[in-house]
């Protein structure tokens, strides 16, 4: 069974005919040549396929493309521009937050989504009092990033990168580059995107 699906991928509207069995991840990689999201486990366990779907981080391997008709998808490739990486990407570079790099696009998308969630005041399993405003310390970062595995074990530097990006976003409200606006428009608790 086939269906035509319209997706806005990294700022460009694309129409693609897919078999209903095609996951969003396979549609992106194999039909739309958007290869930043990676296929690791293909079962939602590793996080390598993480993209921002209507502004929220999800595993692209666990949703069918046909179910996401009309959605906005931002991959790691759409976060920054050539020569102007997103602040999270910059922080991964500055902190050596990777080795082989395979999990990195998923880590970066997950970190961008996670920082939006934290900025919206969402608690996590590491939050002492779930009714209180969480403070994004290292324990919180580790917990919130636990859906992204790194088999090289670059976790120490990934935490450092996310910590730096979090500090940047907290202290910098004047960043108006297009890369940031993609995510800030799609804040997790109150976005008005049409799914």
């Amino acid at each position, binding site marked *: 069974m086939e269906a035509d699906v319209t997706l806005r991928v990294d700022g460009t509207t694309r129409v693609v005919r897919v078999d209903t069995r095609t996951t969003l991840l396979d549609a992106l990689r194999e039909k739309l040549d958007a290869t930043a999201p990676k296929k690791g486990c293909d079962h939602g366990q590793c996080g390598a396929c993480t993209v921002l779907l*209507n502004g929220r981080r999800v595993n692209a391997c666990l949703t069918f493309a046909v179910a996401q008709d009309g959605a906005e998808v931002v991959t790691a490739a759409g976060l920054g521009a050539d020569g102007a990486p997103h602040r999270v990407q910059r922080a991964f570079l500055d902190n050596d937050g990777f080795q082989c790099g395979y999990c990195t696009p998923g880590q970066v998308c997950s970190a961008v989504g996670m920082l939006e969630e934290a900025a919206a005041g969402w608690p996590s399993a590491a939050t002492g009092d779930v009714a209180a405003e969480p403070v994004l310390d290292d324990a919180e970062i580790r917990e919130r990033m636990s859906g992204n595995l790194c088999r090289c074990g670059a976790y120490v530097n990934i935490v450092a990168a996310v910590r730096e990006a979090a500090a940047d976003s907290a202290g910098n409200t004047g960043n108006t580059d297009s890369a940031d606006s993609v995510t800030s428009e799609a804040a997790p608790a109150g976005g008005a995107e049409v799914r």
Partner: protein
Amino acid sequence: MIPFDYQRAEDAAGAVAAVAADPDARFLGGGTNLVDHMKLGVAAPHRLVDVTRIGLDDVAELPGGGVRIGAGVRNSDLAAHPLVRGRYPALSRALLSGASGQLRNAATTGGNLMQRTRCVYFEDVTTPCNKRAPGTGCSALEGPFTRYHAILGASEHCAATHPSDMAVALNALDAEVRVLGPGGERTIPLDEFHRLPGDAPDRDTVLEHGELITAVELPAPAGAARSTYRKVRDRASYAFALVSVAAVLDLDGGGAVRDVRIALGGVAHKPWRARAAEDALRGGAPGEERIAAAATAAVAAARPLPGNAFKVDLVRATLGSVLRELAAGPAQEPAEPADPADSTENAVEGEGR
């Protein structure tokens, strides 16, 4: 994966009609479990009816201080909702201790209740499993991998556990599940929603084909209640429970137990309401003796498998620790009548998800 038809329902009645009319049709929510099962060959529906755009995605306060949670509300939105964080912290904690940030953004309230066991033999289509293929036998009873299997309520046909954290908290909170089927609506207490395996382990819940969860309702918390959820697992994060405890404790002005509700996760085919433990706690202050009696009562009926006997002690220790924490801790803020402006905002928050 076998080919399937996909259709997007526009409302709950249409979704129910579409699935009821086709024995090979299934509802599709966030997909985090069903899509995986279709890849694994565990599930092979010929038709998926998408129920993520039918308007069941808000959290609303009920008259009297309870809360109604739409079946399509994502786990992450529910965990972060002010009403849930303030009045039902055990539910927030349970949700946040499950899965990952990415999965919680996709998984729905209804889908969480409908998720299936993570028993490795159930998910491996090359091994016998009465739940996946009735009549083929239970590989878990033969072992050797029984770390995540039941110690309570299992049968000779199945020793699987229900994997949800959320449902354990909902059980302790006396939640009710609202269901729409071809014959109309019905309401099912959470404790009666999931089944014990008996001789039909292929049936996880009491739902009939075509019945759709539309909402979960929580009664108002008692004035001086305190509640929490504690999960014990092999990793610090992103792992299923070995055992978990959800508990609600309400003490009167003299410090005696007015009400207590305890549910256990990771130990049975369903969220396990530990009524014997509740009874052992009632009648006085929750002192060391009463807590020890409750912890013992919780596992008095345990029948562990070779390889998971450690769970008996783990339940006892975890439950004891949780009860001591709740007995010593402060009561939660009582439910207050909602500010109309707040409830409007809250209702809007879930839209478009």
